[in-house]
């Protein structure tokens, strides 16, 4: 194991223990447990002592063990209880003094599970016992001996709540998207679309670069950025064979793919997992964003950044070759199954984009391809086994962590630690987006948004819209900014694939990716100020 990984392991385990050893004032016990899990996950995601998706699985497991009603912590460590003693007068009982809270109430454990707060009338006190009057109490009742006990104030959810993150609607949305992508590659729909984009452009290298950017971004809006890059590399790299070894066009062509793919991922909720994590955080607060609305918010980002990327690439690495011959093979397949795919894809996309009109959630629509593609034999078990389950699980960990942070009250506590009202709402949005961009250059983009989304949501409830803070804007800005994190070879898998072709030097990527990312961030700030707030609920 490398030093970095050891640091992560030690930090993570320390983080897990810290809230138990050093109880924080004002933080309930379950919230402290959640904080412990959060610290562990953050350290493990940052330093990767184990693969990031296994950290996500660990998060879910720890939540089930430490926060669910059925987990060992809340199952075995029950708070002490007592039975009220009869006084001889009907409706009046002796209970231990400590069991009556400051608000003159008892916590009664219900036979069916859960607790009920029961108001009582305090009559007398002697020898550590209190005589109370409460009509519904009986000697069979189970009363908490100490209502301020650390487990008392928390209604532990069933463990199914935490496992449910693995089939969260947003993951179903991705499942649908990934299966459509698998089928599209199987029936060469991606190649046919690329041909459709590039054929009209002739042999002008500058136009071909633009065509590649647009074609890659379009595919990437529906496929993962990484898969798009893998497919487009098989189109672009063979083109280089006919180019002089020193022509900068080689660099431009290879760079256009990861850049187009990273930017295209912004376009739709299914484009890349950070979008989904932001959407999941939004829907937890009740402010959902529809598929079509996301696309409307993202289109100016994608359009402008693509144009900008074109100019930057041609400026940095201007082509010397006057004409580039494209050998584009393959139109649209016309077999029955391919036609079936077009129908399912077309219908799904149509229903996604018109969500605002018909009101049926895009998450539900996404199950249409999941059902239809295997049912009609368009994909088989091979494609289902080949789905990126690690990515689904990575997302699930982030989603369930967000749920726990919200439901245990950790979110409110985090807000209370900073006097947010002294900051302007817009400054907070810009700060979050900048943090996202910086982190995403070094970290998994999904992890970046997973760590920042709870912050954004917390700030949202503290600052409120009065101070010019709009949660939708903040989360969209965080997700978009993470996609701009494409400066280094390690920033994103598409960059790694492009570097792996052997045609690029790291400075090529850093110069182009850094310039486009920084310029994109400027554009994000403008959109966050003037455009995205229009979509606030």
């Amino acid at each position, binding site marked *: 194991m490398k030093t970095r990984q050891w640091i992560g392991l030690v930090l993570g385990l320390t983080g897990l223990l810290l809230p138990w050893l050093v109880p924080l004032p004002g933080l309930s016990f379950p919230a402290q447990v959640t904080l412990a899990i959060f610290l562990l996950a953050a350290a493990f995601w940052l330093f990767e002592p184990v693969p*990031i*998706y296994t950290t996500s699985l660990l998060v879910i497991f720890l939540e089930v063990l430490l926060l669910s009603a059925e987990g060992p912590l809340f199952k075995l460590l029950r708070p002490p209880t007592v039975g009220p003693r009869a006084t001889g007068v009907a409706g009046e009982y002796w209970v231990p003094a400590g069991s009556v809270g400051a608000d003159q109430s008892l916590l009664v454990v219900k036979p069916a599970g859960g607790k009920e707060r029961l108001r009582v009338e305090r009559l007398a006190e002697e020898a550590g016992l209190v005589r109370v009057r409460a009509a519904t109490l009986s000697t069979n009742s189970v009363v908490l001996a100490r209502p301020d006990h650390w487990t008392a104030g928390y209604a532990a959810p069933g463990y199914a709540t935490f496992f449910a993150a693995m089939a969260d609607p947003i993951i179903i949305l991705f499942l649908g998207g*990934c299966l459509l*992508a*698998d089928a599209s*590659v199987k029936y060469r729909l991606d190649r046919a679309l690329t041909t459709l984009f590039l054929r009209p452009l002739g042999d002008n290298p500058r136009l071909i670069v633009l065509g590649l950017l647009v074609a890659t971004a379009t595919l990437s809006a529906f*496929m*993962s*950025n*990484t*898969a798009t890059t*893998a*497919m487009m*590399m*098989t189109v672009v*790299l*063979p083109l*280089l*064979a006919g180019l002089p*070894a020193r022509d900068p066009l080689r660099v431009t062509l290879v760079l256009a793919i990861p850049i187009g793919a990273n930017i295209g*991922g912004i376009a739709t909720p299914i484009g*890349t*997992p950070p979008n989904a994590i932001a959407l999941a955080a939004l829907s937890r607060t009740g402010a959902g964003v529809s598929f079509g609305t996301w696309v409307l918010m993202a289109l100016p980002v994608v359009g402008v950044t693509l144009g900008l990327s074109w100019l930057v690439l041609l400026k940095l690495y201007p082509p010397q070759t006057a004409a580039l011959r494209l050998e584009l093979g393959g139109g649209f397949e016309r077999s029955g199954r391919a036609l079936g795919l077009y129908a399912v894809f077309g219908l799904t996309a149509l229903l996604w984009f018109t969500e605002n009109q018909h009101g049926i959630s895009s998450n539900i629509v996404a199950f249409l391809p999941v059902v239809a593609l295997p049912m009609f034999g368009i994909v088989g078990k091979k494609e289902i086994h*080949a*789905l*990126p389950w*690690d*990515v689904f699980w*990575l997302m699930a960990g982030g989603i369930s962590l967000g749920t726990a942070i919200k439901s245990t009250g950790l979110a409110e506590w985090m807000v209370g630690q900073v006097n947010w009202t002294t900051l302007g709402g817009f400054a907070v949005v810009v700060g979050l987006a900048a943090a996202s961009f910086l982190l995403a250059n070094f970290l*998994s*983009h*999904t992890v970046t948004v997973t760590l920042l989304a709870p912050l954004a949501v917390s700030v949202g409830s503290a600052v409120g819209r009065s101070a010019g803070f709009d949660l939708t804007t903040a989360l969209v800005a965080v997700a978009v900014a993470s996609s701009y994190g494409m400066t280094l070879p390690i920033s*994103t*898998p598409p960059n790694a*694939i492009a570097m*792996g*072709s*052997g*045609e690029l030097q790291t400075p090529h990527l850093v110069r182009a990716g850094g310039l486009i990312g920084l310029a994109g961030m400027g554009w994000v700030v403008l959109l966050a100020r003037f455009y995205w707030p229009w979509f606030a609920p």
Partner: protein
Amino acid sequence: MSRIYILCVEDEPEVLTAVVRDLAPFEEKFPIEAVSTAGEARRVVQEVILPRGKLGVVVCDHVLPGEDGVSFLVALQRDPRTASARKILLTAQAGLAATVQALNQAALKHYLAKPWQPDELRAVVRRQLTDFVLEQETDLYPYLTLLEAERLSEKIRQQPLPGDR
């Protein structure tokens, strides 16, 4: 990425020079080692190629001073470290027996008769390198520019689609 070598064995210097010249386009990604005897070839495989990478393709003459080409190829086939190398015989004078032995015992992939056409030699080596890479390598992108892109692309498309992280 470990380097994949092309080894040329030919005793006549002008012929060896011609082979290396014809294969020059591959040298960008596949270093070429040129030797004139089987003994020298064995030493280069042991001391140069195997410590740094893999032996991908051998282009070998049959009639050589000392050990002949075919028995050298058979020896390569018996060594597990070089068994996967694609063997090409480039010769004018390999008899039927030697050729049959090369086919049966050295898994000969191609028999090219002298004199050869440069384009033909390149096509043969390109096909054999592509086969080697398809069989031995997991990362295929570096080879899309030089080798048979169509077949490499197809393999990439058959692999599970990677997701973002």
